[in-house]
């Protein structure tokens, strides 16, 4: 067998449930295999670590071809909230936790959380806006430094 992966640095750049979950699942899965995991949140992916937002992330029902339904339906008031509720219910059954609990679980497992400096500046955010699991706000250079010697995954 070839060399095992020892370290991954995962970039979460997209918002919405379908934007943030894949990266969270991969990070948690990495820790479960004893792989070092860093998470770097940028652009709308950052919602997953913003205190006020992390518990309210929804699935997009408009302009999302993966939903297999006409976008016209998706614009109905409350539809996105309903679809999100259904999806979270299914995930809970599979033991996939809601975003805030997942972030806590990955941090407890030893995963490290970082926020992107450029996005923080752009959205006018402060360190206090983030959940306590966030280690620091770093720039791209620092991200590469932290990622050295591992795999980088962009989601």
């Amino acid at each position: 067998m070839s060399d095992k992966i020892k370290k991954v640095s995962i970039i979460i750049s997209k918002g919405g449930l379908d934007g943030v979950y894949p990266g969270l699942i991969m990070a948690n899965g990495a820790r479960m295999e004893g792989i070092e995991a860093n998470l770097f949140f940028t652009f709308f992916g950052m919602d997953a670590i913003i205190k006020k937002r992390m518990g309210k992330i929804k699935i997009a029902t408009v302009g999302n071809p993966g939903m297999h339904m006409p976008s016209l339906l998706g614009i109905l008031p409350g539809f996105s909230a309903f679809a999100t509720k259904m999806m979270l219910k299914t995930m809970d059954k599979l033991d996939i936790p809601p975003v805030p609990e997942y972030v806590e679980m990955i941090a407890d497992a030893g995963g490290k959380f970082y926020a992107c400096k450029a996005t923080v500046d752009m959205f006018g955010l402060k360190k206090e806006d983030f959940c306590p699991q966030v280690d620091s706000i770093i720039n791209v250079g620092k991200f590469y430094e932290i990622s050295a010697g591992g795999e980088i995954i962009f989601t």
Partner: protein
Amino acid sequence: MAQKQYGTATVEVDAEGFMADFLQWTRDVAAAIAKEEGIAELTAAHWKVIDYIHKEFKENGQVPSIRKLNKSGVISTKELYDLFPGGPAKKAAKISGMKKPEGCV
């Protein structure tokens, strides 16, 4: 199916060393598997996890997830990672004589 010798016990294992027949599991076998996994000694905290895994397996036919272990109050995720370094779900299952966990979480 491969066989493995742990002390005086011979057990059936799969290609990755997970036990194939739980009836062959004993506390001594568990301690021997733990040693192979780099855990020198099974402490009371380890046994609390192993006992809970067995209880859940008997009741639901399933090995509990890390999340369930945490939520049930048996052990925090942090402690679990400390007790079974380098892959807690897999290692705890292996030492408990369970099959390899299939889930992603």
